[in-house]
């Protein structure tokens, strides 16, 4: 059986900031959704279903917030699904929405992901004690720092690579009006002089906590034909999961990430990602994850990822731009961060990324991960409709 091709015809996001005290959670998500609808030149009545995602409910202190958000998202009388796959959720949510179109269950679907971290305390939300389990009270940085250290030891990467990524992403963010951190006076020296938080991760190499939402309108072939602006076409999408902790796990380059990328490339007919993919929005909450994911996603051989970063290949003007938007390092409303990656990939192939547009971006990868590097979701979007 053949799937219905899926197109992105509307994208909207909020200006991400530390605290949106001027809006409720409902106000925040509605803002992103309305922007996506406006981009698609559609109204609430054109939407057949809503798929919403966010990270743990404890982050805002609202259990199953989709119930309360049904009205704000025009979902009354419609199907509404709530996805939660940890940090990868923004990507997974888009893929669940895409499946509704691909399966021809619905013609046009609104998908949205958000986090309003200022409503609560994310560190507290992640640190509730669990009976019979080792407490991980060090936060995400404490969990991931040893894996970065393992990567450095394994590859012999010099300890300057992390700061290069942070410096690049924060400069890219200056070109993105929606990015949270706009550090106009950023210099490489400032990044390198920032305090060490979880050795080897410095303060300026970590993501901020943001309030923000991202929305997309996904539609079928007929919907794409009516689109006022160029659609982004989905060429491949996949999710993969593996256990949190077990003896065989490679925390530096998880098998689930490799398998997920391979599945997407197979669907999209990508033989050599380095050659066939023009740019990447990847989930890099700590700077060192750029070289790590370059290897995991097949853009570099094992041990070689840091060399691409060091050579400037991943710069906005480089041969393989990575995180043109400024990435998670500049904007991190956790539940939305994955969808922002997916949406930024789509913006690029639609030629609508503004100042951070990559010239001639035809095929772009959006990537998200979550949990203890155990949940992965990715999609590859293109300017042209998929071949089959």
């Amino acid at each position, binding site marked *: 059986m053949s799937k219905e091709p899926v197109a992105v015809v509307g994208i909207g996001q909020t200006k991400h900031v530390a605290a949106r005290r001027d809006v409720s959670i409902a106000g925040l998500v509605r803002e992103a959704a309305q922007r996506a609808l406006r981009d698609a030149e559609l109204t609430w009545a054109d939407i057949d279903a809503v798929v919403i995602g966010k990270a743990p409910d404890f982050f805002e202190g609202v259990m199953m917030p989709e119930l309360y958000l049904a009205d704000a998202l025009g979902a009354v009388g419609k199907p509404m699904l709530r996805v939660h796959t940890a940090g990868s959720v923004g990507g997974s949510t888009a893929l669940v929405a895409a499946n509704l179109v691909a399966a021809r269950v619905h013609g046009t679907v609104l998908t949205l992901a958000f986090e309003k971290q200022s409503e609560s305390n994310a560190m507290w939300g992640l640190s509730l004690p669990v009976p019979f389990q080792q407490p991980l009270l060090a936060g995400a940085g404490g969990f991931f720092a040893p894996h970065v250290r393992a990567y450095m030891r394994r590859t012999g990467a010099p300890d300057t690579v992390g700061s290069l990524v942070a410096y690049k992403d924060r400069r890219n963010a200056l070109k993105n009006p929606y990015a949270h951190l706009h550090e106009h006076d950023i210099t490489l020296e400032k990044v390198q002089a920032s305090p060490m938080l979880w050795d080897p991760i410095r303060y300026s190499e970590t993501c901020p906590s943001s309030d923000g939402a991202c929305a997309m309108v996904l539609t079928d072939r007929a919907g794409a034909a009516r689109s006022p602006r160029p659609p982004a076409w989905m060429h491949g999408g996949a999710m993969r999961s593996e256990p949190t902790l077990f003896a065989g796990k490679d925390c530096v380059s998880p098998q689930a990430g490799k398998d997920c990328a391979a599945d997407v490339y197979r669907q999209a007919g990508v033989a050599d990602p380095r050659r066939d993919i023009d740019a990447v929005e990847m989930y890099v909450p700590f700077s060192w994850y750029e070289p790590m994911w370059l290897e995991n996603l097949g853009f570099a051989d094992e041990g070689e990822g840091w060399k691409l970063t060091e050579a400037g290949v991943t710069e906005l003007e480089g041969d393989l731009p990575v995180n043109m938007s400024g990435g998670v390092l500049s904007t991190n409303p956790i539940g939305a961060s994955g969808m922002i990656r997916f949406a930024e990939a789509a913006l690029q192939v639609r030629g609508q990324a503004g100042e951070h547009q990559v010239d001639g971006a035809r095929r772009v990868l959006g990537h998200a991960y979550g949990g203890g590097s*155990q949940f992965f979701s990715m999609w590859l979007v293109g300017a042209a409709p998929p071949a089959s």
Partner: protein
Amino acid sequence: MRPLRDIAVVAFGQTDHRRTSDELSEVEMLLPVLHEVLDRTGLQTGDIGFTCSGSSDYLAGRAFSFTMALDGVGAWPPISESHVEMDGAWALYEAWTKLLTGDADTALVYAYGKSSPGSVRDVLTRQLDPYYMAPLWPDSVALAALQARALIDAGETDELALASVAARSRASATANSHAQLRGPVPQGDYLVRPLRTGDCPPIGDGAAAVILAAGDRARELCERPAWIRGIDHRIEAHSLGVRDLTDSPSTRLAAERAGAFERPVDTAELHAPFTSQEVVLRKALRLDDSVRVNPSGGALAANPVMAAGLIRIGEAAARVHRGESDRALAHATSGPCLQQNLVAVLEGDAR
């Protein structure tokens, strides 16, 4: 809407639902059920094309609670997997769409919930509008009582009729070894007027799992697959003030989209945790006395939050598997006073 691909429930398993399960973690509670459905089909984790689960962090009392359950599934080598922070019935819906795309031929769906560690009545208040309603802490029984009062005032039911719903459900549950409340259960005192303890569900812990398969794969795995002829879900406004609590338009619309009204059903498994909600659902679904409603005892006999909706689909499917039903309706609900509703229609091949 007629689905493009024939997809069926081919196996269903559930725990014995109990008031407390202090000695078990969620994973330990879930694991035997996962093995039960895998054993029944002869499949192994690695054979499953897609896995999807439903659960709630707020019941577990911590963030990312579903990640530990995934470890129990044995996701190695890595699997294609997703999770909804909803009742498992919606996880089944996500898995159904995945199978429809042709990306997978089999799916494992599971759900679990332990209500015993906390006060589930209080916990559920946290799913209300966080600015206007949740700060008042109106609990789930109080909200259901509002709905029951509206029904009685509208002349749709009375306390005696509600008591008979409770008695019938728990009498049916005597045939269900997994149920928590079985046989003659006293209607009890008022919990929140007009609801008595007998009108309310038991508080308990439990898990359930289902395997879905498409086309010929379903026939290989199950003697009489329960074909999903249609499945749809709809949500209503959140605020109780803008809803007619005596009706359930979302259930009616979901049923219509699932094809429930095209031909009569012989069985209906309704996710009605309160007796009064069965009254609302029967009307919305146009069920008359010819339909066997909740032969399992329904949520009044066992209501493991987050699994109870999936169990309705599983119970309906199991009756098709056993040849006790040819066309069954299954319903799941979420949110206060039946805010969100899912309807599935399951059929067995002609005998």
